[in-house]
């Protein structure tokens, strides 16, 4: 799903560097909270891990080959945490509703990946829908949202050729 190498030694060294620099610089702020709060230089560091180049794909996205007018389902890491209802594809967008079953709390992150295919089932491209949490202080009335509608529009450049779609969830985080 993503490239990642074991890099513990480099990571530990980077982190030690962060802590060391902060300790050397602590106390430089004269605000009341500064006597125990870190305000040292921001250390732009990484753990030596491969750099992601974009959002993740799901296994099988490019090989699924759903039949024309159908919607295929991609396996993702969080499939045991939700159900979907009414997922359909109308040629312009993939639409449906997703209900969280693992938690009764606010959704912090949710991404639906849509794949699009021609009438032979060949992969054409993809698009994503990201849930946007309500701004703080602007919650809807009542209980946390457990069920949300999603729409993954077909990229304009693909519309003339697209015949089917697939979908899966790449990311889901609840409060």
């Amino acid at each position, binding site marked *: *799903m*993503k490239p*990642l*190498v*074991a*890099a*513990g*030694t480099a*990571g*530990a060294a980077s*982190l*030690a560097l*962060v*802590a060391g620099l*902060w*300790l050397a610089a602590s106390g430089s*702020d004269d*605000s*009341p*909270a*500064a006597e*125990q*709060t*870190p*305000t*040292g230089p*921001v*250390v*732009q*560091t*990484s*753990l030596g*891990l491969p*750099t*992601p180049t974009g*959002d*993740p794909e799901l296994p099988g996205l490019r090989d699924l080959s759903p039949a024309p007018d159908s919607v295929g389902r991609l396996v993702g*890491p*969080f499939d045991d945490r939700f159900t979907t209802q009414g997922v359909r594809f109308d040629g312009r967008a993939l639409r449906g509703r997703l209900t*969280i*079953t*693992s*938690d*009764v*709390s*606010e959704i*912090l*992150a949710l*991404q639906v990946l849509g794949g699009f295919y021609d009438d032979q089932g060949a992969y054409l491209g993809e698009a994503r829908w*990201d849930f946007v949490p309500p701004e*703080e202080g602007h*919650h809807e*009335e*009542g*209980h*946390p949202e*457990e069920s949300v509608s999603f729409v993954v529009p077909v990229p304009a450049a693909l519309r003339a050729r697209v015949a089917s779609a697939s979908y899966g969830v790449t*990311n889901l*985080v609840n*409060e």
Partner: protein
Amino acid sequence: MHPRMKTAALAALALVGAASSTLVATPSASANAEDGIKNVIYLLGDGMGRTQVSAARQRYYGADGELNMEKLGTTGQVATYAVQKNSGQPGAADFVPNYVTDSSSAATAWSSGVKTYNNANGIDAKANITPTLMELAHQAGLSTGNVSTAEITDATPAGQMSHTLQRACQGPSYVEASCQLPDVTGGNPLPTSDLRVTPIADQIATNQTADVILGGGLSRFDQANEDSLKSNGYTVIGSPGSQTVASKTDLAGVDANAGKVFGLFSKGNMTIEKYKRENPADAAAQEPTVADMTTKAIELLKTKSAKTGKGFYLQVEGALIDKRSHANDAAQTLEETKAFDDAVKVAYDFAKADGHTLVIVTADHECAGFNIIEKGSYVNAEAAAPPSNTDGKNTSNPSRATAGAKDGTRSHGFINDGDAGQADVKNFAPATFGTVDQGENYTSLDGTPNGALWLTYLSGNHTGADVPIFSFGAGSKLLEGEIDNTDLFGIVGSALGVRPRIPVPAEPTVTVTATPAPGKVATALGITGPTVVKPNRTVTYRIVASRVPSGSKVVVKDKGRVVRTVVVRNGRATVTLRLARGAHRLAASYAGSSKTLPSVTPTLTVTARR
């Protein structure tokens, strides 16, 4: 440091007694590695406000009972507010508070000593990386552990082991919408190589901040993480690569000498105790309890620290109190509070025997405005839309199948009783429970009007109320009264010896030194503890026994009557008493031996009153 805490830290030594022979007044041991504290076990119930504690006590131990956390001896309360994005710290000109925190901001407060915005993790409100206590402890050579019933990438455990702009950047993959936050990075996304947009799972699997990692959230990790952990010397139980969860049997089989251990027992948050109890054949029933994980973590850390000669720092989270409070599921809120309290007992028992451990029990915030209402009184009319409960595994008991609908069994308040103009099926119904005070079969009263405990909620989210804090061990005096959650950074750091030492205000202590005699070693005894207590509540007194050999017995008397005999270990002993209402006169004595002289404490006068 919180202004009110500074005042407490400067409290003067008090002398409360005198006796024959030479009188020496000494302060009690303070919360610093220099004074014998080597370990800190920091337990928090996520979302566990004062009412969650009180209601669990009434349910399981009765109105006059105590949870284990309430036996620790020192109590206080913690302010939990957060700040807005890009805010300065308290006292700065650009300080902008947010009165209701989330778990990530609260975790950053005690882990790094800074106020930050809700959603931030291990950074301040201006996105500066702030090293955590667990990182500092690890750097100083202490052994470290992080236990949670949530996903181990969730806000509370992540606050010690990672730094991200958004708590939702958990993994297994980088997702721009979940990891970037241009609002706090000058309007532009950070390079994907930046630590602050690196998924938490990758940080945890790579940085070795915690030696022992136990909890849920296997779905956040993958084969590369497993490879990284193993290359760094971790024993991995279960498998992130094959997404095979570990079991309680796997955990029990981990050797105490394993050193670094990584075990996740659920793909998401761990499962509530009720479901496991009622479904013993389900795979979820193989998940350990938070007490099980705490027991193993202490065993591993104690063994590892014995090899290094340094102490350990363990954080334990009972996360499902909050998860079930969000669901307004009072039944499971109570049961998960009890499960968390069982983990507190594990830590408390260890600390009493060890003598070098500070135990702290607190919460990150309250959740859902939980309250105990008078039996038969009306319910919260504002909560017109209680959450439905769609989680197949974690259903409410009694069930509430339909959101926003009256529960005909439990709604008996006058708003729902059909009075003209007031009947409304959407009025929130209270949850009713039997309590242990109602007899052996008290659970049969659950969900009926006859249950003595009536509980209700204000909302489905966090509230800004202060949370309780309980503590045991040297240095716990610093946690008395009102503190701020950022104060915990300095107090715990001081106890671990990784932050500047904070002097501990002395408790009343008296020490009597017997006159030396030829051929025998003089001994001295001191007794310390609270002088005003609640009747019939467990209270702990500490005995300092100078030059008294380990294994020797010390007799504790109240008004001259023997109430306990305790054994001295490494110059210390503790005695736990439940004192009836009224005045008490406590004294401890050591009879001496062929090589040591006897000694006795002066009388400590204690008043037990409501």
